[in-house]
């Protein structure tokens, strides 16, 4: 069995998964099977724990028992130390899944009297390995032998033999070593163990410490070469492989509401894309957290899980404040849909935050993650680091189809857009909240600076906090600029008044026309009457004239008649008539 394993090893490098979160991803499967790996680093960087977790996970998850040979801590100490990480070593020892062997070398008790070798160590290790059929071995700080045994020549030769022997034995081994001044390990162990070297680091930067892990070399295998932050917490070691992520996220066409109806309307009426990254930035006190809380509440109402990282307020304070604008978050916390993680950014370094976020997300498995706010990370000139960290968070969340909402405080209005440029390229939907100062008032305006993949509104809306949450109003944009608040209200009143005046003018015009029409009608009627009377008169006159004509005719006839008989008489008689 072992021979077969060794044969296949020659052809293709086999790997033993460590079970340590993230580590197997970086190394493409774990540590080289059947070969020793050197884990080096300074004091307190987690070497022992890394080794112990390798064994515990190896036996519990991959059914590969392991031997832990400790040169520093006693078995009792070890059991106690790792119990805090949830490893029940005593139980594993009882079931012959793990063997502990504490090798103690006391310089003062030892007298060298000639030729010797370390066969005793070999025998002990061999015995321990065979007694439980171990496949994995950890030698925790074998370098302490250098302090115990004076003859370095023998020791070095024996160590070389030991590592060769481990290879022959076909066990996957971790050898830990203290970091040296110029070498990876104090005693130059890397000289002997050269298949795989892992460096652990514990760096303090601006009073915050960050643990980092780097695969220095890995013969015959691809591996991530970056420094990866790692965490040690109650669940052991977890390494973040986030830097190795590419841009191959799955994208979703699903849309989710922002929780603010009017804002949804600005985003094609549908809201954000699921799995997108939303940035809400703005100056102090413009309601960034309110926008975030709205989003959280809306998500909880849909039955989604929300992980809320607050870096400035305590969860209780935040919930109280949100209650004042009608957003009730407590019920969702009780239901377990909403979880707050409140830490000061200064608590750990950036990498650590990344690691904590990573871990919390993996545990809680949220649909939505809110980071409120992100700019508190920027202490000093670490903007670049913050950017890479955020990039990794964004990549990680996107990879998991988690919608992320970040809030960011921008310090001055002039740099409203520029100060966030560092991360703007990472953001899919950027909502800008800004102060609009006018007429001795300060009002809030909101607009969508960008929103990838949708026809977002380009309008500035006035942002109002009411008892029922956030409301957006259309702002007045006119010749005198953008008006908000009371100015807007005044302007609206002004407009209303103007409309009223206009209406009155129209009324007046209408009445005037009516009056004119009536006058016209009256005039027509008078004219008509005049005409009629004139006509009647004319008819009368015509009649009279006609009568006159007739009379004259008659008179003429009568005269003629009278002249025939009595000339004079007829004349007088005619005159009389």
């Amino acid at each position: 069995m072992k021979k077969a394993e060794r044969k296949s090893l020659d052809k293709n490098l086999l790997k033993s998964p460590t079970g340590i979160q993230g580590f197997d991803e970086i190394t493409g499967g774990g540590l080289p099977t059947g070969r020793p790996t050197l884990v080096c680093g300074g004091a307190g960087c987690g070497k022992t724990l890394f080794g112990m977790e390798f064994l515990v996970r190896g036996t519990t998850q991959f059914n590969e028992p392991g031997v832990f040979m400790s040169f520093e801590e006693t078995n009792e100490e070890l059991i106690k130390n790792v119990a805090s990480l949830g490893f029940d070593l005593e139980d594993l020892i009882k079931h012959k899944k793990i063997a502990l062997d504490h090798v103690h070398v006391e310089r003062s008790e030892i007298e060298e009297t000639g030729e010797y070798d370390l066969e005793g160590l070999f025998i002990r290790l061999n015995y321990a390995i065979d007694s439980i059929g171990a496949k994995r071995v950890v030698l925790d700080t074998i370098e302490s032998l250098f302090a115990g045994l004076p003859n370095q020549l023998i020791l070095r030769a024996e160590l070389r033999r030991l590592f060769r022997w481990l290879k022959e034995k076909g066990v996957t081994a971790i050898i830990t070593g203290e970091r040296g001044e110029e070498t990876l390990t104090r005693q130059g162990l890397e000289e002997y163990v050269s298949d795989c070297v892992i460096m652990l680091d514990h760096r303090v930067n601006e009073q915050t410490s960050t643990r980092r892990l780097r695969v220095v070399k890995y013969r015959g295998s691809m591996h991530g070469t970056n420094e990866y932050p790692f965490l040690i917490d109650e669940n052991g070691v977890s390494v973040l492989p986030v830097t190795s992520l590419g841009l191959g996220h799955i994208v979703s066409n699903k849309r989710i509401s922002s929780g603010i109806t009017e804002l949804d309307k600005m985003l094609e009426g549908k809201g954000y894309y699921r799995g997108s990254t939303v940035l809400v930035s703005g100056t102090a006190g413009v309601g960034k957290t309110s926008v975030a809380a709205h989003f959280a509440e809306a998500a909880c109402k849909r039955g989604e899980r929300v992980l809320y990282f607050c870096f400035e307020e305590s969860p209780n304070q935040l919930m109280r404040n949100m209650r004042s604008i009608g957003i009730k978050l407590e019920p969702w916390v009780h239901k377990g849909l909403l979880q707050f993680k409140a830490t000061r950014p200064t608590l750990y370094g950036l990498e650590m935050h990344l690691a904590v976020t990573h871990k919390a997300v993996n545990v809680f498995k949220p649909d939505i993650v809110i980071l409120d706010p992100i700019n508190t990370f920027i202490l000093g000139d670490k903007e670049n680091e913050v950017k890479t960290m955020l990039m990794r968070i964004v990549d990680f969340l996107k990879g998991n189809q988690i919608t992320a909402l970040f809030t960011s405080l921008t310090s001055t209005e002039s740099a409203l857009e520029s100060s966030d440029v560092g991360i703007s390229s990472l953001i899919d939907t950027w909502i800008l909240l800004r102060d609009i100062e006018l007429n001795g008032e300060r009002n809030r305006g909101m607009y969508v600076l960008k929103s990838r993949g949708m026809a977002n509104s380009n309008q500035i809306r006035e942002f109002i906090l009411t008892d029922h949450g956030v409301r957006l109003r259309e702002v007045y944009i006119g010749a005198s600029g953008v008006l908000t608040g009371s100015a807007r209200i005044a302007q609206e009143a002004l407009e209303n008044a103007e409309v009223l005046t206009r209406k009155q003018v129209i009324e007046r015009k209408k009445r005037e026309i009516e009056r004119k029409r009536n006058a016209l009608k009256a005039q027509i009627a008078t004219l008509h009457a005049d005409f009629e009377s004139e006509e009647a008169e004319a008819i009368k006159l015509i009649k009279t004239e006609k009568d006159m004509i007739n009379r004259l005719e008659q008179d003429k006839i009568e005269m003629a008649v009278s002249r025939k008989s009595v000339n004079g008489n007829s004349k007088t008689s005619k005159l009389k008539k």
Partner: protein
Amino acid sequence: MMKPKKGNSDNQLNKRKPAKTADDKWVLRLYVAGQSPKALTAYANLKKICDEQLKGKYSIEVIDLLINPKLGNEDQILALPTLVRKLPVPVRKIIGDLSDTERVLVGLNLLHIG
């Protein structure tokens, strides 16, 4: 199973010399791995020193770790051969093939006795 590294281990070196008096009893343990040249040299050297210095009041227990690997843990044996002085207390360890007699005597705290 156990894989003897050096030579055949069937032949045990276990030999004891009973102590004469309880007070003056020297209990020595020699850890070896098989009958390696170093083991044989060490045993021979030890026997010689004891016969010269502690005649009649010592016992030597030779433990072959290839046969009883478990026993190595008790005395924290790393290097072989190792001589452990169990009695009189305090326990002392002497590693090597005991060819440097003077250092053995220092190690066993026998110089002022002799």
